[in-house]
């Protein structure tokens, strides 16, 4: 610790602190632009100049390390003169077009100019004009306002992992720009809008639509991936105008993914369902709530009466709130149905009944950064969990070794220690090899069940390299973490992968866990939205069609492991009751009644994130049209069906019952599986499908966000193959190919070369209208030139 004095106040600070950090500790504000606590120090804006005793010149507080006994003056004549001088320079070429600038009212330059600027400038020369740049559909530019602080540049290089912006030219002509003909395309690009201290980078979708002081703001929680990023939702006249990050160091830090930031546009989609609708004689009619609820309750009661409760299936979106899931399962169980599930993209349910508890991350999100060895298994990490990827990117820079075992070698923009890329059917065997290699390195016996995994069958060397990296960590791997991604959880041998990860973590003395796919991947378990003995899981209730379905918040044709099958079963069903914020043509085809419910922004509710943290939020806006919070709709349905235990007056009461109080973290988190049978062999006969869920197609809300749909990440699906596979099929990149999956249906897609795929696989995105007909995400495909 060092003792220093700032403006006469003494304090102790950690060695290596800078003056600005020390001042922050004291609550003393030092004006700054280029400094940002998450970025490297550039020391270029010079706004933070302060006086340091014995130093002849003013020193930049952001870059000057504290020394013992240092005396700092942040408001002395010398300091203030320097700060005012810099402010004057910043303003001479600034357009001062605040009245037409989107940043007005939340601009650091504007704010500081009030404190440090003069009322008139002595600069009477011509001002600089800088041409604007096209950064893509999300970020809009007014580069004349740029103060060249390089925060945006450092963000792309250091946090997003790829330097998409740079400063060209020099001196007064310096310009921040992307590479020629390129835009800013990472999944984190919107953060540069927040980082830009002036109005040079603003939100394209939000631009010119409201002034910051006109907006009401509410805290909320992201409804997308399992992280549960904290949000500030800003509304004007009950319309969500903008979403910003709410800083939470334990979860999203100060970042948001573009999906989280811009998906709000989907809330105002033309496909919003704003009136209850029922289908009568094949015709859709808008009706009153009472009519619709009556219709829905009768339909369900009739099916239960004639065919028994088991004839009803409940498909709940993993993005639904805890309260919605809890009431939905209660309703279904009230009707004597055990067919309830929210794990819509899962295909292997063999661990059900053997789990010791709720599968979760296995650690705190913040602890990911403390792992010194990490193995990511089955994950399109950068797109599925961008902020986890970001944490690992920083870890890798600090010296942590990150490895991946997956079926696609997408560039994670993380320095990897080892990688094994294998066809989906081989992932369990490769992971088994890693387990065996670790056991060998540790000098302990491996599970005999793994003995028969064939060497030669899999890339043993890659597995050994991963094992060596894991074991080389501190205390032989005690700080190692095995993270199973969405692909591993959706894998047809998911239980085996999970059991192997458990063995691996056990051998290392480290931890393992699941990267939650959706906002309530843990919450669904806490809400009991899974079948117990005798019930059918999501896959089974679609494979074995029910007479009736209750669908909450999902579009099963896009959100289930086998969209084609989901569509077929729903179409066949006598009654499908859909609670959804949106309508779609598919829904109009298969549903009997459509109940308009609130998206996350218009209801109170709770998401339990992947680390088990209970995060509740309130509505940020009134429901659109006649939409109503789904928990209220389910409560009324329960009442209409004369079910017990539906006398809730608030979503808080629902939560209290579901969670048995108001815990900070849900109880019963445990990744252990008792007596899992390892299923290590799979020999698919043909080309294996690798299905990713593209980042902007993962749920109904983001699929309807127009700006995101124009982003580079939203490109139409292709059939991706490596060179060998293309050659074997007699194809060239760009050829139109007919892809079939055994059945009669086939889709035509362009073939695309992808060097990062293993032999014998075809990568085709799921969750997309163009590929629904292909059926299961995991399947064997035939490919021929169209």
């Amino acid at each position, binding site marked *: 610790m060092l003792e220093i004095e700032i403006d006469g106040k003494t304090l102790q600070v950690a060695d290596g602190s800078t003056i600005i950090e020390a001042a922050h500790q004291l609550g003393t504000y030092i004006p700054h632009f280029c400094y940002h606590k998450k970025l490297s120090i550039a020391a270029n804006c010079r706004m933070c100049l302060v006086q340091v005793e014995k130093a002849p010149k*003013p020193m930049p507080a952001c870059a000057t390390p504290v020394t013992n006994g240092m005396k700092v003056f942040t408001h002395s004549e010398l300091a203030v003169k320097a700060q005012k001088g810099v402010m004057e320079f910043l303003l001479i070429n600034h357009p001062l077009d605040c009245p037409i600038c989107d940043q007005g009212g939340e601009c650091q330059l504007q704010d500081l100019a009030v404190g440090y600027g003069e009322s008139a400038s002595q600069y009477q020369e011509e001002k600089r004009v800088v041409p604007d740049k096209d950064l893509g559909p999300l970020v809009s530019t007014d580069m004349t306002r740029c103060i060249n602080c390089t925060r945006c540049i450092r963000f792309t290089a250091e946090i997003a992992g790829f330097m998409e912006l740079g400063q060209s*030219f020099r001196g007064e002509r310096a310009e921040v720009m992307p590479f020629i003909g390129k835009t800013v395309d990472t999944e984190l690009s919107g953060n540069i809008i927040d980082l830009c201290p002036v109005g040079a980078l603003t939100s394209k979708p939000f631009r010119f639509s409201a002034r910051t002081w006109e907006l009401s703001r509410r805290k909320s929680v992201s409804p997308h991936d399992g992280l549960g990023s904290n949000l500030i939702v800003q509304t004007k006249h009950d319309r969500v105008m903008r979403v910003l990050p709410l800083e939470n160091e334990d979860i999203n830090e100060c970042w948001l993914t573009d999906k989280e930031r811009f998906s709000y546009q989907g809330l105002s989609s033309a496909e919003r369902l704003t009136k209850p609708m029922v289908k009568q004689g094949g015709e859709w009619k808008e009706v009153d709530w009472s009519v619709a609820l009556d219709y829905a309750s009768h339909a369900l009661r009739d099916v239960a009466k004639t065919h028994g409760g088991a004839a009803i299936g409940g498909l709940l979106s993993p993005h639904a709130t805890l309260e919605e899931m809890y009431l939905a399962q209660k309703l279904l169980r009230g009707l004597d149905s055990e067919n309830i599930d929210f794990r819509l993209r899962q295909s292997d349910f063999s661990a059900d009944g053997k789990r010791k508890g709720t599968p979760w991350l296995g650690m705190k999100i913040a602890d990911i950064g403390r792992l010194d060895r990490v193995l990511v298994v089955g994950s399109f990490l950068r797109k599925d969990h961008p902020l986890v990827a970001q944490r690992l990117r920083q870890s890798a820079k600090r010296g942590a070794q990150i490895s991946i075992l997956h079926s696609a070698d997408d560039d994670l923009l993380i320095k990897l220690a080892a990688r094994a890329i294998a066809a989906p059917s081989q992932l369990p065997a490769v992971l088994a090899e890693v387990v065996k290699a670790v056991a060998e390195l540790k000098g302990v016996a491996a599970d005999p069940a793994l003995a028969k995994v064939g060497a030669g069958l899999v890339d043993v060397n890659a597995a050994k390299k991963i094992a060596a990296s894991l074991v080389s960590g501190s205390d032989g791997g005690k700080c190692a973490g095995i993270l199973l991604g969405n692909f591993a959880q959706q894998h047809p041998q998911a239980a085996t992968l999970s059991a192997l990860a458990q063995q691996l973590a056990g051998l290392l003395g480290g931890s393992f866990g699941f990267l939650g796919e959706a906002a309530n991947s843990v919450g669904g378990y806490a809400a009991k939205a899974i079948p117990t003995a005798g019930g059918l899981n999501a896959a089974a209730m679609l494979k074995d069609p029910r007479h009736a379905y209750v669908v909450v918040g999902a579009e099963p044709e896009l959100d289930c492991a086998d969209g084609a099958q989901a569509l077929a079963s729903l179409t066949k069903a006598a009654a499908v009751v859909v609670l959804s914020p949106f309508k779609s043509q598919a829904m109009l085809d298969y549903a009997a009644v459509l109940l308009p419910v609130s998206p996350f922004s218009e209801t109170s509710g709770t998401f339990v994130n992947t680390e088990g943290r209970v995060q509740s939020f309130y509505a940020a806006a009134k429901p659109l049209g006649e939409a109503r919070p789904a928990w209220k709709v389910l409560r009324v349905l329960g009442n209409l069906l004369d079910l017990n235990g539906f006398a809730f007056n608030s979503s808080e009461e629902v939560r209290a019952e579901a969670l048995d109080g108001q815990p900070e973290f849900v109880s019963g988190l445990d990744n252990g599986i008792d007596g899992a049978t390892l299923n290590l062999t799979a020999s698919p006969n043909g080309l294996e499908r690798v299905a990713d869920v593209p980042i902007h197609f993962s749920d109904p809300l983001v699929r309807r966000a127009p700006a995101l749909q124009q982003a580079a990440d939203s490109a139409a699906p292709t059939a991706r193959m490596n060179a060998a596979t293309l050659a074997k099929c007699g194809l060239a990149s760009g050829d139109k190919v007919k892809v079939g999956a055994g059945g009669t249906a086939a889709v035509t897609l362009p073939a695309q070369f992808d060097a990062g795929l293993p032999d014998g696989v075809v990568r085709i995105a799921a969750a997309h209208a163009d590929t629904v007909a292909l059926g299961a995400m995991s399947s064997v495909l035939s490919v021929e030139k169209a």
Partner: protein
Amino acid sequence: MALIDTINPLLTTGWSKGDAGWSLKDYEARGGYVQLKRILASKMTQDDLIAEVKKSVLRGRGGAGFPTGLKWSFMPKAAPEKYVVCNTDEGEPGTFKDRDLMRFDPHSVIEGMIIAAYAVGAKLGYNYIHGEIFDMYQRFEEALDQARAAGYLGNNILGSDFSFDLFAHHGWGAYICGEETGLLESIEGKKGQPRYKPPFPANFGLYGKPTTINNTETFAAIPFILGMGGEAYLNLGKPNNGGTKLFSVSGHVNRPGNYEVPMGTPFAKLLEMAGGMRGGRKLKAVIPGGSSAPVLPADIMMECTMDYDSIAKAGSMLGSGAVIVMDETVCMVKALERLSYFYFEESCGQCTPCREGSGWLYRVVHRIEHGEGRPEDLDLLNRVTDNMMGKTICALADAAAFPVRSFIKHFKSEFEYHIENKKCLVDPEVQRAGSGFFKAGAA
């Protein structure tokens, strides 16, 4: 160019044969690489070597005049990877000495760098050569080939256990790449922008490794220092200002060129060596150390001796040793306009005061020169320079400010005249005559 009047020629001993005397055999014939051989054969310790350089009081010839031996001693001993870098980015207006060193005696630079590498324990070196002297870059590559073929570079140099290799790297002409950390960034393939210091290159240099970076002339002096001994070298000059120095004399003299003189030589002597004032005209002002150094009026300059301390006492800097001589036909406003344009053009643009201030300065001086000056402009210029100096990452902002302040300080009446009368104090006809490029009355 080759015939140069020198006192005690040292660095320029090899220049007399012009372009015919640069190659390895010529350098060896005049005693080249002897010092390297001696050091390797005697297994001289690094400490002894650095002590010898310290004794010479050789001060960096790149502009800042930092003692070279001291700089070398900052290099961490234990670090496994270290670099030696030579700064041949010579871009300071008025300076052209490194170019001639590279042209006439590249092996002295190579030998100096090898010895420096030995002293600091570096295995790899780079010479960063200004992009606008591409011929010198090509010559240096040739010289490197010769040295490598002769076993002076590479693994186990001359059978010793010392290994070192050296590579040439050319820039593209940006002045800021001469600033040592901007230069390192440029070698790394990044935009040439100075880094915030500390950390200094001795701790965090090229690719983040400890690095010694010196000017071309600094390295070239090393073999000579070791040849005659540090003490003898120091005694060539004056205390605290050891040895000889190259001065690039330009402007209104009869024989512009590079002159090597001992530190402490009177300016009057240097002027005389350069053939005196052109056309016998009167000396008006001198910029004694490259465009970044404050200008000094004739009377002050004529009292100075050419060494760091004397010039500093007079209120300027010896800098890189570029002596820009101006006679009475010069309009000081126009001269400053030209200098200010240079800094406006060459600022890298990262620091607010430099990026914005250098343009502001240029525009105001430009206005004054073009008859649009305002009475408050001189105070404004002083205020702007005040807000730039000492407030930026590198010294370029100071370099932009110094000329403005010194021109106004010493030639204020000329600026005032310009503002008031909207024209030059020195008649344009006279200026044209003095420039030597135009006949009076023409243009």
